[in-house]
């Protein structure tokens, strides 16, 4: 009995290296944020005092906060619309054996591995009216009839950023779907073909149902990923024009490190963490189809 316990201890010792980093950088700060949310702290000040639920009460009255929540959900929904559909198409396309397919798979990954900062600054230039290539292409192909200031007008800034962000996520979604596709045995398709399934029928009745759980998994990963996006927004619009693209991470960063209201920012962060926890539970318990 003791020997088994000793061995279990030794096994757990292996986890120590990675666990110590995770505890230090994730677990401890979570607890700390939770505590800070009940204090009035301003940046650099030594003094902080307990305000109980004061920060949360202030949040309830804070219209900026509520509209940021709304924008974060618009942001998440818009992104998911692209991220849960397009990768399926690309994965189907790349799921075949032919020469050069490995190169194609590698090239598809590029948007995902490239640093956001470089993407953000270059696309700002490419999206400018008059001198930007994207305006030029859309005008030349007749998809647009006048110059647009994509990131500079509040109507187009959010959809534009959603497209950029989704483009950056596509490789990751594609990779996950592709891995699910490759785990489907060839024989399944062959026997379906013998039964006369063709093209779209094959996809609708065979491939899609078998991909089911992976598509939901991609949706969840994408949701969490999108919700966290800060750099792309901060380096293109800083939440503007006005506050058209100010999602929760941008608002929290601004509140904490630009206006130095740490207590309120912590309360926002706690609120966001709880909100996401609820979304996660609903997603897995209620929405995800059972096997």
């Amino acid at each position: 009995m003791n020997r088994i316990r000793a061995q279990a201890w030794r096994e757990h010792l292996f986890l120590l290296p990675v666990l110590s980093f995770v505890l230090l950088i994730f677990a401890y700060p979570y607890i700390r944020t939770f505590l800070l949310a009940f204090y009035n702290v301003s940046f650099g000040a030594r003094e902080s005092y307990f305000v109980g639920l004061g920060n949360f009460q202030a949040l309830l009255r804070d219209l900026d906060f509520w509209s940021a929540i709304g924008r974060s959900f618009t942001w998440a929904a818009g992104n998911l619309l692209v991220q849960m559909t397009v990768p399926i198409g690309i994965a189907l396309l790349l799921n075949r054996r032919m020469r050069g397919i490995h190169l194609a798979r590698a090239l598809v990954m590029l948007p995902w591995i490239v640093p956001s900062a470089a993407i953000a600054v270059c696309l700002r230039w490419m999206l400018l009216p008059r001198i930007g290539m994207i305006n030029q292409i859309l005008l030349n192909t007749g998809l647009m009839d006048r110059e647009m200031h994509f990131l500079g007008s509040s109507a187009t800034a959010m959809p534009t950023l959603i497209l950029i962000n989704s483009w950056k996520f596509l490789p990751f979604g594609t990779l996950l779907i592709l891995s699910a596709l490759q785990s489907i045995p060839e024989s399944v398709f062959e026997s379906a073909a013998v039964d006369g399934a063709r093209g779209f029928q094959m996809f609708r009745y065979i491939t899609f149902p078998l991909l089911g759980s992976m598509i939901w998994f991609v949706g969840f990963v994408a949701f969490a990923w999108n919700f966290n996006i800060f750099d792309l927004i901060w380096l293109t619009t800083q939440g503007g024009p006005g506050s058209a693209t100010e999602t929760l991470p941008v608002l929290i960063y601004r509140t904490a490190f630009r206006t130095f209201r740490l207590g309120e920012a912590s309360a926002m962060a706690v609120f966001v963490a709880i909100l996401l926890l609820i979304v996660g539970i609903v997603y897995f318990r209620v929405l995800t189809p059972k096997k």
Partner: protein
Amino acid sequence: MNSLTAKRVNNLIALMVIIVVLLLLIWPFFYIFVSSFKPLREIMARAVFFPVEATWGNYETLLFARTPVRDFPRFLLNSLLVSLATTALSLTVASISGYGIARGKRLKSGLLSRLLLLFYVFPTIVLLIPIHGMFTSVGLYDNLWSLVIVYTAMIAPFCTWLLVSFFENIPKDLEESASLEGASLFRIFIRIILPLAAPGLVAAGAYAFITSWGEYLFALLLIGSSLKRTAPLGLATFTAEQYIEWGPLLAGSILIMVPVFLLFLPVSGYFIKGFTAGAVKE
């Protein structure tokens, strides 16, 4: 015969569709690359795809017209140091813990090891204030090591699980026979396990390097002085002022992207394989 031609036509169509999709997805990189050789007046004029009078000017400005505040080679060097240190530390941490999980059945199904990945779905923004406070109070604010620590925490859990699937494929007999010959666990780990898991280490290492090379938010949070900026942070300073210098910005973006491409393309096979191996099992 007929079905063979049909298959060939089919493949040809697929190939063409793949090429079109690839072009749609990655033309911006090519456009940014050729544009980084355009002189300012071409960059600020109506867009034309290729430079008319190609020039090294943007790169020269970026690399040689250095000021203490705008020292791009220094930014690149900072990023390189941080990424190399993060990669080394992440691989060390992840290979020890990954090996433990691969060999301990209780660990693999255990709550604690699953918990590692859970942190990926929590919002990072929640961590910012305490992490800032923590590093300030121990005197590591504005120190590149603080970034190495944070990045390792972000990267190591994923690398750990990535390596688990590689360690599991190594037959246990190998270890047992080495152990009968009197080799210590440490020796077995270094001499037998790690070399056999080399493809996994390459994939995990590439992931670690690429992720830490491009990270922006924590660099913004933890670095204060201009000499310690990492490349993404340094790049952003070119847009901070009223007048945006698009030329050096494009050149700088290329210099940030190229190492990532060069590192990724040769190992992409391992990378994709390691990634999918982990994903399918879950």
